[in-house]
């Protein structure tokens, strides 16, 4: 028989339709609502899952192909980095402290995102989002693993990398900030998860995390981080389109979804922005060579780009999150407030901090003409005078924390940068304190959730943060030292000021050896 094959391959859209939508079916042994029990309880109404669009129309065969290529490129660079003592090519070992913060604070989130998207994929009855969530779930575990792998190179040489991405995230005081953000999202339903992570974090905020971070790593000679960063980031564009598609889908499916979605956007924009305080500090203080200030990044990626997004969503009735007024004030303050915090609690942190030098303070003045000289330079100058006298300031008392974002209460009133912002709520006869109107609103909306918060300072006072078998009644018991031991933080090595640290001495010595024969 002479059969003529049709040579024309399936187009992208047809192929995607066959290989995703075509694979779903209506369950018969159990009704669909029993198989997908989480699909409705949040109040989101979906009438037709077929209306879901995946703009990239990626099928698994293409997914594996391109992901494999990304991995090959990544490992080629990592090998070259290790073989050529790439760690000596960075601008200054101070930079590595940003990387330590990334490894301990961000990489574990990638892993939680992996679990969260796997769960979301399981819980959505629609085939389109299920496939997209599956791919994102696999992306996220790839990110966690490649980041840990890439940064393990630094663990051969520098302090503070040994605890890696697993131990400290559940223990260290400042890591409870990003962890609680993801715990909050993961303990919500699948639709809220998608707004929290897929939309607010991936679409609205991820550029602020990854783009300046990776460009900054490149600018500071850190080839390993640039490479895993860009390798991860190449997946982010797909994650961003998933987040945006998800929000449009919810809004198009039923008008009743609008107030629920708006509430989640307001909540998660603020939650995400508070977490990004750590990124602001990294950009303004931790990169020896700076790409742009936090304020500039905020203006490009949040105000301009987010503005374009919210203009686009206005047709559905979505309003710009109400926290925006506060954020416009905060963009000139939070990075300085955060660095001042880590400067004084450096003895309890798994990375080093330092005072900005004159040149760096001038850069900060130029980038923050309204705030730096007026509010922050005097603080750094007076700490420097103390350090010059041999009295480097370490704060010896535990701080009060915000019940929601878990950041110490360092933020100031929107109309007065000299006054700490106190907000107080009461629930079932107990007081709860928050750092801002944004966090207070979130608390008051779901107090039953946030009263369970694992606040590091309170946990230390309850005696839950010492190694097993610790007896706090023995003579000379030093609670802080025991907490550091429980953190797997080597006191005197991983913590304190960069000035005088092992990292500083080793980097200078090794770089000397790399460029001279003596």
């Amino acid at each position, binding site marked *: 028989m002479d059969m003529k094959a049709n040579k024309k391959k399936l187009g992208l859209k047809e192929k995607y339709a066959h290989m995703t939508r075509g694979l779903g079916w209506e369950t018969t042994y159990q009704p669909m609502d029993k198989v997908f029990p989480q699909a409705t309880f949040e109040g989101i109404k979906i009438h037709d899952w077929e209306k879901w669009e995946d703009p990239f129309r990626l099928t698994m065969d293409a997914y594996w192909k391109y992901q494999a290529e990304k991995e090959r490129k990544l490992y080629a660079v990592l090998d070259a980095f290790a073989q050529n003592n790439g760690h000596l090519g960075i601008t200054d070992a101070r930079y590595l402290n940003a990387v330590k913060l990334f490894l301990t604070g961000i990489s574990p989130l990638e892993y939680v995102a992996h679990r969260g998207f796997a769960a979301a994929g399981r819980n959505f009855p629609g085939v389109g989002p299920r496939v997209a969530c599956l791919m994102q779930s696999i992306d996220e575990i790839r990110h966690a693993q490649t980041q840990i792998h890439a940064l393990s190179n630094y663990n051969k040489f520098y302090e503070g990398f040994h605890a890696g991405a697993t131990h400290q995230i559940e223990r260290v005081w400042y890591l409870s900030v990003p962890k609680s953000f993801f715990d909050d999202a993961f303990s919500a339903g699948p639709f809220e998860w998608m707004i929290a992570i897929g939309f607010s974090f991936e679409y609205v905020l991820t550029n602020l995390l990854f783009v300046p971070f990776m460009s900054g790593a490149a600018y500071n000679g850190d080839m390993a981080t640039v490479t895993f960063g860009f390798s991860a980031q190449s997946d*982010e564009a797909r994650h961003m389109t998933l987040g945006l598609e998800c929000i449009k889908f919810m809004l198009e499916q039923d008008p009743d979804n609008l107030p629920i979605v708006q509430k989640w956007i307001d909540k998660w924009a603020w939650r995400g922005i508070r977490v990004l305080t750590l990124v602001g500090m990294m950009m303004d203080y931790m990169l020896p060579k700076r790409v742009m200030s936090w304020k500039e990044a905020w203006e490009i990626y949040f105000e301009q780009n987010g503005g374009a997004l919210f203009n686009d969503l206005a047709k559905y009735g979505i309003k710009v999150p109400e926290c925006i007024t506060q954020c416009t004030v905060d963009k000139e303050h939070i990075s300085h407030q955060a660095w001042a915090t880590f400067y004084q609690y450096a003895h309890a942190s798994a990375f080093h901090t330092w005072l900005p030098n004159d040149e760096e303070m001038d850069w900060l003045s130029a980038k923050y003409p309204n705030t730096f000289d007026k509010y922050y330079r005097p603080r750094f100058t007076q700490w420097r005078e103390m350090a010059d006298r041999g009295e480097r300031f370490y704060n010896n008392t535990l701080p009060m924390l915000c019940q929601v974002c878990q950041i110490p209460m360092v933020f100031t009133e929107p109309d007065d940068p000299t006054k700490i912002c106190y907000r107080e709520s009461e629930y079932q006869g107990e007081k709860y304190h928050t750092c801002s109107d944004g966090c207070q609103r979130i608390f008051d909306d779901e107090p039953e959730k946030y009263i369970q918060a694992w606040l590091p300072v309170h946990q230390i006072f309850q005696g839950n943060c010492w190694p097993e078998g610790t007896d706090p009644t023995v003579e000379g018991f030093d609670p802080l030292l025991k907490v550091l031991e429980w953190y797997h933080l080597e006191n005197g090595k991983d913590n304190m000021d960069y000035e005088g640290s092992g990292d500083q001495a080793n980097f200078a010595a090794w770089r000397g050896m790399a460029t001279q024969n003596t």
Partner: protein
Amino acid sequence: MSTVFIAFQTNEETRPIIESILEDNPHAVLDEQPAMVKINAEGSLVIRRASIEERIGRDFDLQELQVNLITLSGNLDEDDDQLTLAWKN
């Protein structure tokens, strides 16, 4: 009108892609940053397969863009021949 953008890693694979985009979108503006290239455009931006193929002298699948993509902004629509980013307002 709002700005859309797309950013790629700076490397040999993306150079002809960026050239093609700039030629096909005369209103686009190039923003070169450490290790990355960002292309900003008012309203919309289109990436054409044919323009890239002409430069690299081989077949090109637009999904190959994923390997070097860093970030983008705007509503995305992709088929076999072109990828479009747009804000429809």
